[in-house]
């Protein structure tokens, strides 16, 4: 055997070793974090129970159902439509682990796009997870991608015509919030959207809320985006929040922007459709070094500077916009929406308890209300 053959064999071994180590690390993204539902959970289903086409696919996802002792309104809360927007996901985890419904029904889907949690965006340097301290130790949660994992849905078309007929760039075929009302035999992301539409119809959802976050430089932020049938509800919620000192914008869902939850849920089902946005430093384009601390603390000098230059749509000080503040904002808005629903439709009351107040979450932190790791 010649000298360069020996070197080649050593290099091939090294390539196999690097592959093994990086693959082992990357495949941990396929493991979901633990969620410990409150003892008052009525039943746990999966999206595939509403649309069997998702069974055994990476798009299938747990659905937590909490029913009260008496009938009332039905509320759906979606987190993780975009898995790189952690406040929406963490709000649903907080609810699942604490909720007790007295009247009506609350359905929670923390990982709306389960596949998006199984990878993260290339070339962004984002962490795969972040941790929160609970009373009994640290718990970790996934930080995923805005889009479905390309391993699960590939290749992207050059031009994507979504189920509502809007033309978009090809990568948007993996964006759940461009894929409504979904397609039974479409891409995986369209099947997930179809499954969620089925859930809304089968469970007779009165109010459906999609929890999101946006970059601080994005104009639709700290906002309630509403379908026209939900305008009055959004207005009541906005006034309630203003009275509590929470600054919130109202944004009407544009009728010609198709494929989004706040548009298609409202057009294709009877539900009142709402989407909420908070400000997430970790997925903004102006951020500095990505890290798990940036996700949880939301502090960034670039954003501070951008705020001083008047380039942002939210106030941004050296305290940043921590995750607990964003989750607390989502909780306050959900409370205001439920209050608004009962005001507008007295026959659709939803009453619940044991949810930490938004002020408690902001002062004590999210971890104080999460179950310690088991």
């Amino acid at each position: 055997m010649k000298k360069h053959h020996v070197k080649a064999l050593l290099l091939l071994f090294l390539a196999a070793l690097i592959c093994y180590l990086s693959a082992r690390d990357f495949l941990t993204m396929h493991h979901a974090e633990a969620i410990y539902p409150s003892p008052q959970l009525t039943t746990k289903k999966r999206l595939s129970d509403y649309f069997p086409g998702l069974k055994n696919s990476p798009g299938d996802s747990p659905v937590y159902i909490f029913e009260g002792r008496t009938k009332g309104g039905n509320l759906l809360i979606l987190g993780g439509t975009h898995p790189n927007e952690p406040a929406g996901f963490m709000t649903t985890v907080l609810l699942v682990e604490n909720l007790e419904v007295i009247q009506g029904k609350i359905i929670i889907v923390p990982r709306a796009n389960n596949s998006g949690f199984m990878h993260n965006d290339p070339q962004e340097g984002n962490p795969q997870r972040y941790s929160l301290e609970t009373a009994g130790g640290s718990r970790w949660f996934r930080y995923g991608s805005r889009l479905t994992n390309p391993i699960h849905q590939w290749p992207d078309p050059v031009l994507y015509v979504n189920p509502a007929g809007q033309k978009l760039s090809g990568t948007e075929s993996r964006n759940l919030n461009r894929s409504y009302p979904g397609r039974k035999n479409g891409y995986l992301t369209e099947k997930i959207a179809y499954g969620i539409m089925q859930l809304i119809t089968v469970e007779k959802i009165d109010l459906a809320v999609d929890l999101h976050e946006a970059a601080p430089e994005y104009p639709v932020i700290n906002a309630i985006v509403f379908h026209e049938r939900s305008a009055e509800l959004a207005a009541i919620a906005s006034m309630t929040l203003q009275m509590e000192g929470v600054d919130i914008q109202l944004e009407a869902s544009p009728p010609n922007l198709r494929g989004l939850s706040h548009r298609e849920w409202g057009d294709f089902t009877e539900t009142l459709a709402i989407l909420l946005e908070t400000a997430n430093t970790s997925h903004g384009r102006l951020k500095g070094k990505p890290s798990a601390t940036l996700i949880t603390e939301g502090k960034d000098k670039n954003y501070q500077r951008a705020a001083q230059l008047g380039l942002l749509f939210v106030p941004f000080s050296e305290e940043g916009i921590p995750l607990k503040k964003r989750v607390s904002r989502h909780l306050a808005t959900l409370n205001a929406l439920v209050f608004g629903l009962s005001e507008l439709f007295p026959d659709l009351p939803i009453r619940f308890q044991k949810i930490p107040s938004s002020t408690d979450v902001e002062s004590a932190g999210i971890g104080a209300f999460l179950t310690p790791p088991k």
Partner: protein
Amino acid sequence: MIQTVYHIIVLYLTIHIIWFIIREKKFWDQLSGMIVLVMFLLRLFLIK
């Protein structure tokens, strides 16, 4: 179907890279080939 075509193309190129590393005499060129090979192997096994 399209995934099978994809696998065949990636496998074909992977074999070429391995063959290149074996017959190449310059170490730094072999090393460059090895770095490219890692990406192809990860693609071949649909890991990333």
